């Protein structure tokens, strides 16, 4: 294919371009640039998915330079799914953010969003460990900037805590990469897959441990989730949605990709190792749900729900050995949660904006004056609980199916328990929303929010439900992932 029209390169260039332009042009033009750029990126991602469906995996040498000094971009089914999710969710979120920030935009919101998306796209398209480190840092720094954009003391503290956590995570990752390069003289993920054998030296085991632990810290898997609730719960709603729906998935994607690729042999030598992420995932589901049930503030409730839903992503690791079911379950869960959580956070943002209260109690009576937003919240909740026909249901169904087929019923049990617990915290909000407020002292109904605020949330939530009915293209994309 023509070097200049390759969607791989444009998926990284476009967001860099519009982010830089938005920085120069200011907040008036920023949203228009972002929306135009993301529409083009979505097209690129669709073209790329079409290509991947035909060839299983595609590559691109940036600038025509060969490895090891040049950078080889690479995409397969896993990257295509993540790219589609990222562009789709981000497009809906920037449309929401444009209305949400109609009065005052936090400083540098549009450029930071662009850099964040560029970093994530580059992460999904990179094939070597060092390049992945750079993209991880790009994503981390842009995300920290967005958390701090609120400007209050609580947000700055959350951003600092998040920054230190993410820097320790990528520091551990970089140290692991240094050990790997010292042992094998290459950082290409595909070459390392063949080089790392069962007799790997201790340094490689140490490297794998450091890299994967660093990624767990960035993904906020229990008990390394301490930084997530203040950061995601304290940021402005569009930022919370970006972080919860997409950013934590980026480091999960990398964990999965390394587990299936370079470190696959190590995982086979010690099958018990795979139980560790699953056990932590189970603990995350129980602890996160419990904290969500007890949370006082609406956005903190949703942030803890993210902690719980991340747990599901890690339940798949003991099941990855045989059959494609577990991988499909994991990627469907990542996609369904991405769509549903983005919808839930922005719906909560609208609820908070209208009611003026950040507490869960603030939603009381919202059903009467914000029906569309509340419907979006409920639909997203349906997907999180895993009720049919949502995408969340399909993901959990595949997971339970794989767990029972491979004789690990405890995983199925945790998945079902997590769904019930999700039901409790979702209905806690819905029950309040349908409560009839005292009509007498309620003189004027609160002003209606802009239609775009309500309908963008609804669109995302509806997509997370429809995913359950139209998941076949996504599953077909994953069929070609090398294992």
């Amino acid at each position, binding site marked *: 294919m023509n070097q200049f029209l390759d969607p791989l390169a444009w998926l990284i260039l476009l967001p860099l371009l519009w982010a830089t332009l938005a920085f120069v042009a200011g907040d008036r033009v920023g949203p228009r640039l972002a929306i135009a750029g993301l529409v083009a990126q979505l097209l690129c991602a669709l073209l790329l998915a079409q290509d991947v469906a035909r060839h299983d995996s595609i590559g691109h040498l940036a600038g025509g330079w060969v490895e090891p*000094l040049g950078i080889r971009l690479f995409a397969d089914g896993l990257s295509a799914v993540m790219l589609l999710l990222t562009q789709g969710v981000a497009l809906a979120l920037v449309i929401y953010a444009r209305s949400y920030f109609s009065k005052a935009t936090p400083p540098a919101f549009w450029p930071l969003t662009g850099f964040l998306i560029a970093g994530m796209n580059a992460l999904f398209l990179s094939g070597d460990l*060092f390049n992945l480190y750079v993209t991880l840092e790009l994503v981390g720094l842009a995300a920290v900037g967005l958390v701090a954009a609120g400007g209050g*003391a609580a947000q700055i503290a959350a951003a600092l805590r998040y920054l*230190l956590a993410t820097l320790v995570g990528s520091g551990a990752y970089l140290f692991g990469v*240094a050990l790997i390069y010292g042992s094998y003289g290459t950082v290409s993920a595909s070459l390392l897959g063949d080089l790392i054998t069962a007799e790997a030296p201790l340094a490689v085991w140490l490297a794998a441990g450091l890299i994967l632990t660093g990624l767990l810290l960035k993904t906020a898997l229990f008990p390394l989730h301490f930084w997530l609730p203040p950061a995601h719960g304290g940021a402005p709603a569009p930022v919370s949605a970006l972080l919860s729906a997409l950013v934590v998935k980026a480091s999960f994607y990398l964990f999965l990709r390394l587990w299936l690729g370079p470190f696959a042999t190590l995982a086979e030598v010690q099958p018990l190792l795979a139980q560790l992420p699953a056990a932590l995932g189970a603990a995350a589901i129980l602890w996160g749900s419990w904290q969500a049930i007890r949370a006082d503030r609406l956005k*903190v409730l949703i942030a803890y729900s993210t902690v719980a839903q991340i747990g599901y992503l890690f339940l798949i690791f003991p099941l990855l050995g045989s059959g494609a079911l577990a991988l499909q379950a994991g990627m469907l869960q990542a996609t369904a949660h991405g769509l549903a959580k983005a919808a839930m956070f922005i719906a909560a943002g609208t609820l908070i904006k209208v009611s003026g209260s950040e507490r869960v109690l603030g939603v009381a009576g919202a059903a009467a004056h914000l029906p569309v937003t509340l419907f979006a919240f409920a639909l997203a909740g349906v997907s999180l609980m895993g009720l049919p026909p949502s995408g969340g249901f399909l993901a959990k169904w595949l997971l339970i199916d794989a767990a029972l087929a491979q004789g690990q019923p405890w995983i199925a049990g945790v998945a079902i328990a997590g769904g019930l617990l999700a039901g409790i915290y979702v209905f806690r909000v819905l029950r309040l929303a349908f409560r009839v407020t005292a009509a007498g002292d309620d003189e004027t109904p609160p002003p209606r929010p802009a239609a775009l605020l309500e309908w963008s949330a609804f669109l995302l939530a509806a997509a997370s439900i429809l995913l359950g009915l139209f998941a076949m293209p996504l599953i077909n994309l994953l069929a070609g992932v090398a294992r």
Partner: protein
Amino acid sequence: MTPGLIYAVTGCLLFVLGLGGVLLLKALLRRILAFNLMGSGAFLVLVGLAQRDGTPDPVPQAMVLTGIVVAVAATALALTLARRWHALTGREDIARVGDAGSRKRGRQSERRNTPR
């Protein structure tokens, strides 16, 4: 012991020192410096381990240069945030709040955050 190995072992020590600093120290400025120590450790290992046969390898050197740029950017961001935090609250450390979500702990952290 070859020079390369000495660099690598020193790098390991620096990394562990830095990691301990980021996790255990209180003052923000010290934690930011400790993070830089961590990074320097990783860079030393990267350059040290790669020159086992005496001839330096250009690839890790290019990586370390990139890594330094990233570390400078991260440090700048951390310092900006720390200064802002100091300007807003007059404090030089952030309280270690485990879970800011629940009611009880939230109130505790509020109490801890009041300037003395």
